[in-house]
């Protein structure tokens, strides 16, 4: 890996490379350049995940033609795909070194295990939602329980906007979470559940299930689960899988007109 990155920097395949390096005892994202090529010896995969692709979009915003290389776990690759589709990065200017992701039954060695959440405490299990659950588990709760459990989670929100700030695919100039007509932007506590639902709607067909938002949430709201649910709807209704396709999501709230076209099977159902 290190030799390949050195070669890329030396022969100009990339102008800079985003990876990780131990700095003051912490594995931190680091930008490697040709001028300090010897640093590439210290390039590591790093146990802590950051959104390198988000840093790349910030660099590309300043210098659009720059050629960027970066380390990419599976989630980074899905995010890059979304960023290409939405014209935030030019795929011709991006090269990735693909690395291992979370350990699983299929993959013994994983460099990342950030998605495994700490077990929920007993109170959270009783009145809230365990972050380790799957969307289908939640459905088992029944409607009124589901509402009260989600409301318990939402009322903890301190409106730090961390979930939006850290999200690799949140790039809108004007964020709907700061739009007065959608959500009250003023004092705490935030308007719930609308704050979270506005974000959830915006994440439908956009979220690539990296879990960074949940990592960054100071009050452990199971955000990933919520967005898994909205993505499930997009996938069921429109047959669109975020992060894998080469077109923008059909469920698009940007722009003046929305043309929603359900996937064929749904059309067939309505025809009957």
């Amino acid at each position, binding site marked *: 890996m290190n030799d390949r990155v050195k070669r890329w920097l030396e022969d100009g395949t990339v102008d*800079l490379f985003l990876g990780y390096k131990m700095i003051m005892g912490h594995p931190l994202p680091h930008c490697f350049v040709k001028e300090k090529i010897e640093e590439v010896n210290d390039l590591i995969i790093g146990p802590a995940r950051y959104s390198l692709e988000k840093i790349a979009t910030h660099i590309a915003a300043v210098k659009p033609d720059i050629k960027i290389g970066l380390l990419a776990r599976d989630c980074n690759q899905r995010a890059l795909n979304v960023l290409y589709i939405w014209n935030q990065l030019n795929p011709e200017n991006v090269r990735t070194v693909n690395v291992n992701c979370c350990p699983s039954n299929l993959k013994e060695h994983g460099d990342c295990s950030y998605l495994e959440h700490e077990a929920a405490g007993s109170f959270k299990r009783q009145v809230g939602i365990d972050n380790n659950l799957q969307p289908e588990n939640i459905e088992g709760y029944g409607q009124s329980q589901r509402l009260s459990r989600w409301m318990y989670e939402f009322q903890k929100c301190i409106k730090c906007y961390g979930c939006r700030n850290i999200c690799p695919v949140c790039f809108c100039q004007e964020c709907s979470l700061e739009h007065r007509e959608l959500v009250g932007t003023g004092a705490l506590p935030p308007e719930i559940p609308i704050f979270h639902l506005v974000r959830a709607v915006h994440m439908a067909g956009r979220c690539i299930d990296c879990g960074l938002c949940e990592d960054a949430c100071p009050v452990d709201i199971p955000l990933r689960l919520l967005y898994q649910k909205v993505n499930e709807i997009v996938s069921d209704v429109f047959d669109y899988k975020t992060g894998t396709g080469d077109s923008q999501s059909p469920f698009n709230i940007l722009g003046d007109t929305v043309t929603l076209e359900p996937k064929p099977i749904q059309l067939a159902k309505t025809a009957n």
Partner: protein
Amino acid sequence: MQCKLVPSICSYCGTGCGLLFEVIDGKINSTLPMKTHPVNEGKLCIKGWNLHEHINSFMRLKHPLVKTFGRFIKTDWDEALQVTADRFKEIVAKHGPDSVGMLVSAKITNEENYLAQKFARAVIGTNNVDHCARL
């Protein structure tokens, strides 16, 4: 093109969350929580998330200013400190050292807090020292 990720500590409150500044071409572009920092474990509050806006704010004071005839005039540090010292001396001479109080802060280091109370007690001669975290 230069891109650096600079580790730092949030200076907004006494918690001291670890963070990273994303610096692109010499300008702090955004703030990120440090995921491995033992204090905040990859989380920040809204103040920490927006540190870069506070640093880049056009309202930020970048030079010492001295108020002369009701207007703030740009000056250098030597003059600003001299003016402050002279005014303090005048006030202490006229009203006594207890007419002065010192407010220190959780946002500065332990050593700076120590120096500030030392200054209040040994130089000005008052025990009027208080701290924003003393609730």
